[in-house]
């Protein structure tokens, strides 16, 4: 293979230019076919122009060394500060000559350029490796849209890729979703909008980031969310929270994407001042209701006593980033409506991300108080109770601990 590669790269002259290349880390599909020793040759102009054009589409211009090499199709690599793009000249030649675009090769090219455009390092521990692979997949999907691929082309191309899911790589469904998401990003950037494509997996972003300062919060121990899971992912945490919400009687909930994670928001509920939710149907109205059964005692109590309303919104934020809360007062009313703006489920691309040691789950509790019936409910900040008490009285903590 090496001899043939040398001949393609320019006959005898190219042979002279052949040199072995050591790398610190490398990414290649079909890595089973990777030769033990890596030889590189000067790139031809057409291939260089192709890669530079594609890299330019990302809006990034880094120092990238493009070389023909004995790699399967195309590989991204690094050696110290130097970044490489290695390609199999036969494959790229076919790609350039082909009258119809070979979208499978385009997906591979896009993925490897995605690594370099995002300045990924390959000398990483496995959990981070999985994250950068998904990011490169998203970039590939984006690039394929820019090259004119339809969503079906992307799906067909990705189906032909040797995707493997192990400790270092995300599961194939997550990767397919990442390609799709990238394609939709490209479409959205081109003004195409999200449309009603049923395959889309984009979900709304959290309405404001960082989130407004909560009345209380509680860090949910990871052991409660991912216990007994050998390779925990964000979807495991999401399922655990959903189950707890269901058991604690919460109805509607909404998923939002947040940087490196997701947020799950429960419906606003009416509570007693001590944090217990109101019973039955009285839990859900967002106003203080008159007594349902008339009796003189409750009537006079209502006539001569203030009837403040207490409300609560719980948002679980699961992310590997540190959570900072905004203190912008203009956003303080917004949490009441969050449950109506998100998605009903977690997209695969987020759900399949690993629940690493960096990931934390924080329950943000927004308490609202309505001074009297019919008046505006305002955010209590800080709240009357701590986040932990809210979690206990809402029965969510007990459900998570089960």
């Amino acid at each position: 293979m090496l001899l043939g590669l040398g001949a393609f790269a320019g006959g005898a002259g190219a042979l002279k230019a052949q040199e072995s290349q050591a790398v610190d880390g490398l990414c290649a599909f079909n890595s089973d076919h990777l030769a033990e020793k890596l030889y590189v040759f000067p790139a031809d102009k057409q291939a260089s122009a192709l890669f530079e054009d594609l890299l330019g589409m990302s809006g990034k211009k880094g120092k990238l060394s493009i070389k023909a090499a004995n790699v399967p199709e195309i590989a991204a690599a690094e050696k110290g500060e130097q970044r490489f793009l290695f390609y199999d000249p036969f494959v790229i030649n076919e790609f350039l000559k082909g009258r119809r675009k070979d979208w499978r090769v385009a997906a591979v090219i896009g993925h490897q350029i995605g690594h370099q455009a995002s300045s990924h390092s390959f000398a990483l521990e496995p959990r981070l490796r999985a994250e950068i692979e998904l990011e490169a997949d998203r970039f590939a999907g984006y690039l394929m849209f820019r090259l004119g691929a339809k969503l079906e082309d992307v799906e067909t191309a990705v189906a032909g890729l040797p995707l493997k899911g192990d400790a270092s790589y995300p599961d194939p469904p997550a990767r397919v979703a990442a390609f799709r998401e990238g394609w939709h990003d490209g479409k959205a950037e081109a003004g195409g909008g999200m449309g009603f494509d049923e395959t889309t997996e984009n979900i709304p972003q959290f309405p404001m980031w960082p989130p407004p300062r909560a009345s209380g919060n509680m860090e949910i121990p990871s052991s409660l969310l991912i216990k007994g899971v050998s390779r925990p992912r964000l979807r495991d945490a999401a399922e655990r929270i959903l189950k707890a919400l269901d058991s604690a009687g919460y109805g509607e909930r909404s998923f939002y994407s947040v940087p490196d994670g997701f947020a799950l928001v429960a419906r606003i509920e009416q509570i007693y001042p001590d944090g217990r939710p109101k019973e039955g149907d009285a839990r859900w109205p967002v106003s203080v209701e008159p007594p349902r059964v008339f009796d003189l005692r409750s009537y006079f109590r209502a006539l001569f006593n203030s009837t403040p309303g207490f409300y609560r919104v719980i948002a679980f934020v699961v992310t590997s980033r540190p959570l900072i809360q905004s203190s912008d007062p203009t956003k303080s009313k917004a949490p009441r409506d969050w449950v109506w703006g998100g998605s009903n489920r977690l997209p695969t691309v987020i759900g399949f991300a690993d629940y690493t040691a960096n990931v934390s789950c924080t329950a943000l509790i927004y308490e609202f108080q309505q001074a009297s019936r019919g008046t505006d409910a305002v955010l209590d900040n800080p709240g009357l109770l701590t986040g932990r008490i809210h979690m206990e009285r809402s029965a969510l903590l007990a459900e998570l601990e089960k």
Partner: protein
Amino acid sequence: MQAKQARIAKEDPLTNQQLVPMDRARNRLATLWLSAAALIFATLSIQSLRLVYGASVQEVWGWILPTLMPTLGMIVTVLGYTAVDEELSKAVVRRSFLAVAFWLSFCYLLLILMTIAMQPLSPANPVDLMRMSNLWLGPFQGLVASALGVLFVTKRQR
């Protein structure tokens, strides 16, 4: 004596049974208004002190004072005036007009009380209910003020 009565009856078609002394009429209306006003003010004061209206307490009193005070002011002023001038107490009023004035007052005061009493049974904001009640209390107040004005301000004597 019988001749005198017959002469009076001939001059004035109204019999004594159809007439009520103005003093009694005024006292009857004043009793109604002052007791209803006391009940309303007591209720609103307790509610205000117990923060039933929260920050809207000023709006609540801004609603009740113009609703009651003009009429109450007139009633108390006239009662005081007649207390020191005996001549003004000799007037009479037709019983039927007193009944009209009384029932108009009664209904008006009942509507005000109901606006307050209905609050615990309504999901609406109490201040909104009070504002809404002005729609019917306003015209009603005009009628009541006219009726009471005649009764309390007239100086005609029989």
